[in-house]
């Protein structure tokens, strides 16, 4: 089936090369161009040969691609994950798409990383290095013995390769599942749309490969790296329902790719630790783009702007004097670009923060009460994020608690001075905690009538309860939304 598949694509490839050469010769107007015409004829006669190269190019480039398997361990189960990845250097470093690991998952929950080469059932071990905040990539490193087998993506960089243009032919690599020994297959399409989002992004007419795998031009030069595929609108019909609108996302193959020059400069961003720190921090919540109508109303022509919904307490933005409802119009003196969809402008600013380091400066021009203000923000290091939080599972009680983080205060409108207690991170179904009415994300304020100030206090109290087999019950004061409640957890 595979050979048929490729054959069909090769035919398409021949036709397109022919068309390109004809168009090219059609441009010739002066006698001086005769040698070129001859060259064109030679090219045409050589065509079958050139087309035959694609399988060879494919076979070589497949050596950059791998499948990475690992386990995400939670309180009750282990979730196997399998994602494509691409080798980026001679040290066996591999990048995985941002979607490979959920943002709440701590590095301690990630177990048993394995790497499979295409057409191979043999697993090699690998180590998780962390996630890069700017690119979103997760980095893993293959064990030594595998490294010589892998060819880094950079091997396919050809100097002078033009950026993809509309209607250009591009191809990529798909990887089948474990039961088929991760067999690679060929995918080809044409560029249908090019858009800054804010990175230069191309959307092809059809899928080009698994997310985070390389994309090549007809000559085998690297032109990009696939992103997670975008959702597509469909109507779903069934016996009961007529035309229910649904969004489908192809998780195995993607037709969206970043241009190579949006990828290559960032391959060196290998995290120095699994938390990906340092994480640059501005400290605002909800950067909301204005639409072109509002921009015109604010007399901002040919540019965009962002409304700052909230400035977080104690953040670098607050220190710099930024206020909620300020309208950001320029960054480092440059007006915010008009990008589509509007939300991309917020991503643009977030990336400008993320490409910097704590201690770096960022100049913001804001509108406040019809006045333009220049603010200098010295970026900070982001407070602990959820995947870094300390947490502990109490099996007999049936709950996991984690420390109260800066972000929990933001979500709950709690001032820094009033932040205490712990957060329920997991409730085991039908456990004493579940029967007592506890839910995920509840905020525990008191245990047995005693106010809990720190994570350590909570752990000590819950560990003592867990260890005491004679105890019939314990009582918590918890918050959910704007209400508190006293909850009794029966242990007997």
């Amino acid at each position, binding site marked *: 089936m595979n050979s048929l598949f490729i054959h069909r694509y090769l035919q398409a490839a021949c036709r397109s090369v022919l068309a390109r050469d004809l168009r090219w010769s059609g441009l010739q107007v002066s006698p001086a161009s005769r040698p070129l015409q001859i060259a064109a004829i030679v090219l045409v006669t050589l065509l079958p040969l050139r087309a035959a190269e694609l399988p060879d190019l494919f076979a070589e480039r497949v050596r950059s691609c791998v499948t990475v398997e690992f386990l995400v361990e939670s309180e009750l189960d282990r979730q196997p994950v399998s994602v494509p990845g691409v080798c980026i250097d001679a040290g066996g470093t591999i990048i995985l798409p941002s979607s490979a690991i959920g943002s709440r998952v701590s590095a301690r929950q990630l177990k048993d990383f394995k790497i499979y080469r295409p057409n191979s059932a043999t697993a090699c071990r690998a180590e998780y290095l962390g996630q890069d905040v700017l690119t979103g990539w997760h980095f893993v490193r293959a064990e030594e013995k595998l490294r010589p087998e892998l060819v880094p993506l950079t091997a396919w960089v050809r100097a002078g390769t033009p950026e993809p243009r509309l209607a250009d032919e591009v191809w990529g690599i798909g990887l089948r599942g474990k039961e088929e020994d991760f067999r690679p297959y060929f995918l080809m399409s044409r560029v249908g749309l090019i858009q800054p989002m804010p990175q230069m992004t191309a959307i092809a007419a059809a899928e080009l490969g698994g997310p985070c795998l390389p994309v090549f031009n007809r000559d085998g030069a690297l032109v990009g790296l696939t992103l997670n595929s975008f959702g597509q609108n469909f109507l779903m019909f069934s016996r009961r329902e007529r035309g229910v609108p649904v969004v489908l996302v192809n998780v195995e193959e993607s037709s969206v790719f970043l241009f190579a020059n949006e990828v290559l400069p960032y391959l060196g961003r290998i995290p120095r630790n699994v938390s990906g720190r340092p994480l640059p921090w501005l400290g605002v*919540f*909800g950067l*909301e783009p*204005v*639409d072109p*109508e*509002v921009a*015109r*109303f*604010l007399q901002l022509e040919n540019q965009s702007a962002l*409304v*700052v*919904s*909230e400035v977080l307490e104690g953040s670098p933005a607050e220190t710099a004097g930024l206020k*909620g*409802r300020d*309208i950001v119009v320029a960054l480092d003196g440059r007006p915010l670009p008009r990008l589509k969809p509007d939300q991309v402008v917020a991503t643009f600013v977030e990336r400008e923060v993320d490409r910097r380091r704590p201690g770096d400066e960022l100049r913001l021009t804001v509108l406040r*009460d019809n006045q333009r203000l220049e603010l200098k923000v010295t970026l900070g290091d982001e407070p602990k994020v959820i995947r870094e939080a300390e947490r502990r599972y109490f099996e007999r009680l049936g709950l996991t608690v984690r420390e109260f983080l800066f972000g929990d205060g933001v979500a*709950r*409108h709690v001032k820094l001075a009033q932040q205490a207690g712990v957060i329920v991170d997991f409730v085991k179904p039908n456990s004493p905690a579940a029967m007592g009415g506890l839910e995920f994300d509840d905020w525990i*304020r*008191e245990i*047995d*009538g005693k106010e809990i100030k720190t994570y350590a206090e909570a752990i000590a109290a819950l560990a003592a309860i867990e260890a005491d087999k004679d105890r019939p*019950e314990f*009582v918590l*004061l918890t*918050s959910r*939304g*704007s*209400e*508190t*409640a*006293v909850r*009794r957890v029966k242990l007997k």
Partner: protein
Amino acid sequence: MSGDFNRLLEAVVRIDVREVTFAEGARRFVAGVGSGVILSNDGLVLTNAHVASPHAVEISITLPSLERVGAKLVGWDHWTDLALIRLDLDEVKHRRLAFQHAAFGDSDALYAGETVYAVGTPYGLTRTVTRGIISNNRRYFEDPGGVRGYETGAFNTWLQTDAAINPGNSGGPLVTEDGRVVGINSRAYVGADNLGFAIPSNIARRVVDGLVAHGSITRSYIGLVPGTLQDLEHFFALALNTGMLINSVDAGSPAARASLHGGDILLAINGQKVDGRFPEQLPPIQNMIASLPVGSTVRLSLKRGGQAMEIPVVTEKLESRVGEEWAFEKWGVSVRKVSRAFARENQLDDSTGVIVLGVQAGFPAAVAGLAAGDIITKVNHESLTELGTLQRIYQQFEAKPDSLLLEARRDRRVSLYVLKP
């Protein structure tokens, strides 16, 4: 049946109501049917708050004599789901219409198993009588949005009956064999077999008096959310049948300002001991607080951990979370004022703004990007502390249409919108 019962039948009416709604970005009218019972010679009719409300624009009563006569709302009280309307007496006199009126019985004297009858207009079937028993005479049934989005049931318990109660029975009387009104039928579990609920007549009697005198019932609020103490007495080291658990204290409420918090035990209100062990014991305690004069100081006896304390709290007026509603037709948007209760519940800084109830596709508000649930906080840099501010801006817009800059929040995210004529 007794002659008294037959007289009662002559006092039960059908109520047709046409009322305004603001749901879809416009002012729309909907019609509904309910029941009611005539209480007096001067034409007072008692019904449910979810039958006749201030949204009603036209109320029409069908008397047992099959004559129709207009009526006006006297007042309503969604907390007890009761409303009082009055027949158009001029019309009654002019057309020489006659009617009977019913008398209240004592709902406290009811016992489980006692035979009762429900009279009303289920599914428009006028003057339907169904029979059952009192299944429970003290049912706790609080519902934060039970009366068309308004809170109900916090201050009274309900009578539960197995007499068939269906949509349209609402507002009709639940009566004993001697034709005395012991309850006002109000709700039922849809799909369940004969689980109906009625407001006890002893509650209704007080509400009727209040509505006749003031047109509304004023209650006090301090911001306590009660919980049951059932099985927690040991933990709180309490004697049985003592105290009420305070589960939560509304942010910014008088109780919060007096530093009460969840987990405190309320032992007494102005020296009067309370017992909130089971859910059905909570409404009378809530009602004790609600019945205090607004702005008065109430002495709460509390237990916090091992400590006993007396804390004075100044009551304020109880408000619904549902604010005033309006539609701005040329903009294609309907709104509801943010109330203090809504602001507290949703952790807003204050009650500035109006909530978008709906937008009409293709109208300026929808074109600008507004959607249901957005809270409009500012128009042209003017804060919307009152609904009147927006109404004034709308009038100016009607007179001289011009673009407006709106600030609105959606889940805490602040966005700007331009509303173009």
